[in-house]
């Protein structure tokens, strides 16, 4: 689905919205957090976003690996779940 390009009429509103959203994105990404006072360029933010998401995906994979080994020895019955829950609260 390619983007529909209607006339360039009311572009300023979307522009502000997008700038604001890109700024919010910038604040989420640790790489760019230090530059909070400076607005990084949108393309830089996008690039860092993609890298960040890829890193998070990789972390989920690695953690799933670790957990599958750790939980091999533990029975995930209600007792263990309760212990873990209380540790996390």
């Amino acid at each position, binding site marked *: 689905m390619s983007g*529909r390009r209607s006339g360039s009429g009311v572009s300023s509103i979307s522009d502000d919205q997008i700038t604001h959203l890109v700024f919010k994105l910038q604040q989420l990404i640790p790489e760019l957090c230090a530059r909070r006072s400076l607005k990084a360029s949108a393309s830089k933010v996008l690039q860092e976003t993609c890298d960040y998401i890829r890193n998070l995906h990789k972390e989920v994979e690695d953690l799933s690996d670790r957990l599958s080994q750790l939980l*091999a020895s533990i029975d995930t019955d209600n007792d263990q779940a309760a212990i873990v829950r209380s540790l996390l609260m």
Partner: protein
Amino acid sequence: MRSPFSLKQEFLKKWILGLQRCRSSKKNMSIFKRKKVIKLSADVAMASARKGTTCWSRALIADAVKEGNADKHLAEKILGPASERQPTEKVPVGAMAYNKRIRSKKILKRSSVIRRTIKCAPQAARPSSIVKTLVGKRRQILRSLIPGGEFMNGVSLIEETLDYIISLRAQVDVMRSLASASKLVNLN
């Protein structure tokens, strides 16, 4: 503003539920299979914690149970009986279009169903200097990283990205805590 802590609790609750649903076969599972179960139930739990309010979460779940997916039966097991599933299953705007797309690409491109999926992107991005950075390779990459990304555009793409990152972070935090907690419990 959603509190991050309650998101984590919601995720943990659903994740444990999903894991328990797979528990009966767990005793004889290979490590490989176990990892798949852990990861899939975590992803599905995070998506359903959103309760169908975001496009990516609907797309993730739809993707997990679509025809032709190798782990479809596993995902359905994790999601539980249809009666217990989120209401999103009944009217998944993005997901329905996603499924139909698999069945018939040509019709989908011309039919009005495509217009319904645009609810994910209510206002298509209008050309502007900022938006120009959203075209081309980087946008494509971002769309490929987010579930259901190919249906999103402009403003909604960034909003979905924000939500997706927040959810992923919560998921990683909880998984990490569980890993360290399990290690501690293991040592006893």
